[in-house]
């Protein structure tokens, strides 16, 4: 089983592929459950209007960390295919900055793995978000 498990990790400067495309990549006739998470850019942060967002990343290390995190998830849960896409560029409000999709035979595994992947991505993956407001911009993480 494990040799057939597929991993898709990619960083994009263009808009991310659709959720359908992502879920079809992880789908399989032997996996009954597909869990996904999409992070989309929001129009406000603590009451302030966000005009646009920009993501920057240390690309090669980000991919390396994502592969590590996925291996950790595979150690913890019986999951099948895994996809993690992140956008590194300006992202207009309402568009996806991250898509995660996991398939598994049983639903708990896929859901818990998705939660782990997004939590660890946010904690460890060298990617930074800059929010632009009417009165300036700020790198998130450093100034929160």
């Amino acid at each position, binding site marked *: 089983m494990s040799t057939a498990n597929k991993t898709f990790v990619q960083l994009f400067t263009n808009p991310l592929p659709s959720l359908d495309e992502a879920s079809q990549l992880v789908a399989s006739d032997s996996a009954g459950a597909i869990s996904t998470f999409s*992070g989309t850019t929001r129009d406000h942060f603590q009451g302030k209007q966000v005009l646009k967002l920009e*993501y*920057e*990343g*240390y690309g*090669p*290390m*980000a991919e*390396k960390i994502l592969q590590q995190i996925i291996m950790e998830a595979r150690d913890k849960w019986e999951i099948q295919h895994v996809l993690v896409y*992140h956008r590194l560029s300006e992202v207009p409000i309402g568009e996806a*900055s*991250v898509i995660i999709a996991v398939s598994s035979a049983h639903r708990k595994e896929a859901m818990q793995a998705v939660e782990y992947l*997004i939590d660890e*991505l*946010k*904690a*460890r*993956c*060298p*990617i*930074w*978000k*800059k929010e632009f407001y009417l009165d300036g911009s700020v*790198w*998130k*993480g*450093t*100034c*929160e």
Partner: protein
Amino acid sequence: MQENGTSKVTVLYFAAARDITGIASETFSVPHSLGDLTSILTTKYGEELRKILDHSLYAVNMDYVEKDLETNTVLKDRDEVAIIPPVSGG
């Protein structure tokens, strides 16, 4: 180490760190450890960068270095050292 006892390393700047340095990367000759690099960087870029460094981790060749291991982390020639401010992906 080189014959002169220092190592030539490339340092990468991202996000808030790059806003201060104004460049994405540069090369330094570092006598010994990551601790020495911190001295070189704060001498060059001052308090502003030191505040960032206090809250950042170094990654050497794409591996994080724990904060309390910095002074013990010896750099080699051609190491790629990145300053990783608190991340905010997702």
